């Protein structure tokens, strides 16, 4: 008897980015992943700065802070602040939807197909609005702080 090998149900690294026919929430998923990994990378640099330089006294600390006030680092810092806003609020939406809030009732898969996220997409849009607002507030703070 011929044994049919099932096709491995994974796309590998392409599956990290390929969204296919999926909608808005799938792109938020990619953004969530990118911001999460970015923040984790930042954490390593941040911990290096706040341990090795902090323990060595005032002069080393001031030198490190002087070095980090470079506009390039400031821009990077803003990106991390924006990533934090995105990851936090999208994560909040994910927790609420995991627990069954902000979702329509599930319906049987009968034509015309409908998913339970689409009907409540205005909530997703509201979360995106708050994310944009937070990013603008952080941006304002960075601008008046002087690059």
């Amino acid at each position, binding site marked *: 008897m011929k044994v049919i090998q099932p096709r*491995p149900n*994974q796309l*590998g*690294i392409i*599956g*990290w980015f390929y969204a296919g026919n999926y909608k808005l929430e799938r792109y938020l998923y990619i953004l969530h*992943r990118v911001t*999460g*990994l970015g*923040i*984790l990378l930042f*954490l*390593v640099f941040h*911990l290096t700065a*706040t*341990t090795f330089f*902090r*323990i060595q006294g*005032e002069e080393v*600390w*001031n030198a490190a*802070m002087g070095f980090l006030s470079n506009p390039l680092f400031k821009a990077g*810092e803003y990106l991390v*602040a924006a990533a*934090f806003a995105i990851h*936090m609020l999208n*994560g*909040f939406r994910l*927790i609420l939807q*995991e627990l069954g809030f902000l979702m329509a009732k599930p319906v049987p898969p009968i034509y015309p197909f409908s998913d339970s996220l689409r009907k409540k997409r205005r909530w997703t849009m509201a979360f995106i609005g708050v994310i944009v607002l937070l990013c603008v*507030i*952080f941006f*304002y*703070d*960075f601008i*008046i*702080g002087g690059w």
Partner: protein
Amino acid sequence: MKRYTYLWLWQLITGVLIAVLLGIHMVMQHLDKILPFFGVDLGDPTSWNSMIERSGQAIWAGVYVALLAVLLYHGLNGLRNVILELTTSPQTERAVTWTIVVTGILIFLWASYVPIALLYR
């Protein structure tokens, strides 16, 4: 299978904790030019004096160590989930899991030493 459900549950719980603890951190460090409008003036939070004054207080050391612990769990568990999408092999999965557990413990020991050492300086 059951323990993975608990890992995910803790991912949600640590997520909420991070929103609170890192929220404090971000408002203090990055909205320091906006806070005066609300009558709170912290000065420059990255200056040596401001930093060392906070480091002497047990509550701040506690906040930093707690934030470090929940961030490491949340971040490294997330990283593990991302990496494990690439494989279905149990051996690779075990290797990845243990590498991440050991990395997390090492980073925690390294980085939690400084806030505790600065308390007694």
